[in-house]
């Protein structure tokens, strides 16, 4: 089976990929110049794989997609936004020592 990876999305895909998704979506707002964002990357790859089918993980590179970041209230990166049924339901900023379990706790709280 092919490995499940986070999906890179552009401004014009935000509505279809995130807001209209049938499962909760975790969106990672990041940029290549941001060290902590790059630290977060491998953890999100793992999350995407572990929650395959239950949660969709998307990535927005704010270097190219500044507008979608601004529209979603992003002022720091990395920020993870959690969307459910088209609504922003949770947010996490920065990388922590318990990053993976912190993300999982948030995800679990939004799964039915």
């Amino acid at each position, binding site marked *: 089976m092919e490995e499940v990876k986070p999906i890179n999305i552009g401004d014009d895909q935000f509505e279809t990929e995130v807001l209209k998704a049938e499962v909760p979506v975790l969106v990672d707002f990041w*940029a290549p110049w941001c*060290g902590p964002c790059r630290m*977060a990357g491998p*953890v999100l790859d793992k999350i995407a794989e572990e929650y395959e089918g239950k949660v969709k993980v998307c990535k927005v590179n704010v270097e190219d997609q500044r507008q979608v970041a601004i529209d979603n209230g992003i002022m*720091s990166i990395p920020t993870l936004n959690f969307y459910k049924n088209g609504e922003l339901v949770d947010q996490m900023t*920065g990388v922590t020592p318990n990053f993976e379990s912190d993300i999982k706790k948030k995800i679990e709280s939004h799964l039915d």
Partner: protein
Amino acid sequence: MPDALYDVIIIGGGPAGLTAAIYASREGLHTLLLEKMACGGRVALTAHIENWPGTPDGINGMDLTEKFKQQALKFGTQITEFAEVTKVEPLEKAVQITTDNGSYTGKTLIVATGSVLKKLNVPGEDKFYGKGVSYCATCDGPFYKGKDVAVIGCGDSGLQEGESLLGFAKSVTFIAYRSFMKARQSLQERVKKKPNAKFLLNYIVTSINGNKTVTSITAKERQTNEERIIDVQGVFVYIGFMANTNFLQGVVDLDPVGCIVTNDDMQTSVPGIYAAGDVRSKKIRQITNACGEGTIAALAARDYIKEL
């Protein structure tokens, strides 16, 4: 694997720790490096490093430490990321290290945990983290295009990061706790020349205000107590660093500000435990001397193991 005995355990995956790892594993020592987050250290917050020898065009901080990491892996260092050390216990000719996910025993330990930026500890700081409060101008500067921001702290870090913000923001107000700025003169001169730089000296920030995001800060003149509200949408905090040594209280000698005291061989007050990089008690904190100290610590650990 609580039973594995390592020759060298290194805590911290910044330049000092990774250099120690390269040297130790290249010497054939069984080496484990534990990193609280992902490798990189504070250097990872710097977009462009200009004083790393051999890179005349400069280099991105994360790119640099990623190369360090690859080199340590190549020589056989075992690296465990997102493993925060909670306890260090010196044993007979060994040291026991406890993390959230298990414990490890090493013949020697090299502490290279570096330092973290101090927080202001004022109302609003935590509430608006990620909503106007930032500790990384490199990461977040572009979100403040055309906005007014404040930089708290006028040491080298504050002015350096503030200088990069001046390229994005409409205005940057630099706020110094003292009546003068501590940053090096050449940097001060450069920043002072910028038309969108403002300065408030001898002020203490007492709160960060806003609704959903930051709208202003309150600052007080330290002599007259005159209070000012400064309208800003961003606040960048650079009021100094704190050594990451909480887990070492009572284990090795620390100086009055919490940095680890060592001798010239990087040995701490406990034989077999070494320290390298920003966490050490010293004056100059640069990537180059962090690497130098990592080198010394690894080779001193090698010699110590020979004598065991």
